[in-house]
């Protein structure tokens, strides 16, 4: 065969859920990496953009916004069994609490 796949292709006749679940079974790090991607895009993108426009980035506020933005897809993944491990969900919630502590105890006056 011209293209030799490294894994069995998912059965695409059972809907898009089955495709995603089979992909996650093959590569369990997919969901955590997706959540990390969401967090870093919001955090780095937001704070860098603010640093460019204002001269200084409000990192604590952007960390809190990014962690909340990460919590939403994590909660959506928790609806169907097999998408996300409970450990990762707890880690995302813990990240929310830690960034909230950072944000509320931050000395600078936040504008967000």
């Amino acid at each position, binding site marked *: 065969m011209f293209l030799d796949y490294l894994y069995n292709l998912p059965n695409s006749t059972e809907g898009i859920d089955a495709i995603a679940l089979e992909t996650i079974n093959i590569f369990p790090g997919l969901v955590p990496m997706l959540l990390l991607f969401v967090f870093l895009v919001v955090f780095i993108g937001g704070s860098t953009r603010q640093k460019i426009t204002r001269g200084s980035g409000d990192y604590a506020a952007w960390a809190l916004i990014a962690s909340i933005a990460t919590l939403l897809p994590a*909660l959506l993944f*928790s609806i169907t069994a*097999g998408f996300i491990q409970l450990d990762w969900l707890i880690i995302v919630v813990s990240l929310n609490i830690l960034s*909230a502590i950072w944000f509320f*105890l931050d000395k600078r006056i936040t504008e967000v």
Partner: protein
Amino acid sequence: MERSQITITIALISIALFTISIFGFAIGFANDNEASMSITDDPNVAQLNTDTSSDISTFKNDSEDTYQSILDTTIEPGSDVAQSTGSFSISVGNIVGVIKNIVYLPYQTIFGSGSGFGIFFTTFLAFLVFFVGLLIYKTLRGNP
């Protein structure tokens, strides 16, 4: 920058309220959507949720007592400041009650009658009361 007592109190209460609201949101999301897993499946999270809620309830009661004791404060005659906080205390408590009554309907419609967000809302109002009381105290007597 010097951190004042009010700033620190705001920070600590905000952290506790944020934690409760995040937990409440995640638990409510799992219940509403019949999710396959909930964060309460983890015993530590459930314990933290209970502990934080009881801490906030304690703060709510304490702040109400503190506010009442601040309103009862008197200052010895002879000083150049008002002798009691009566001029400040006429309507603050009533105004908070009015606001609570007014927002009850939208609150009930949006958040439902569960106790999870009730703690959040009542504590936030209690914190406002505590904040006003502390401002009155500091106005009359300076920093405690």
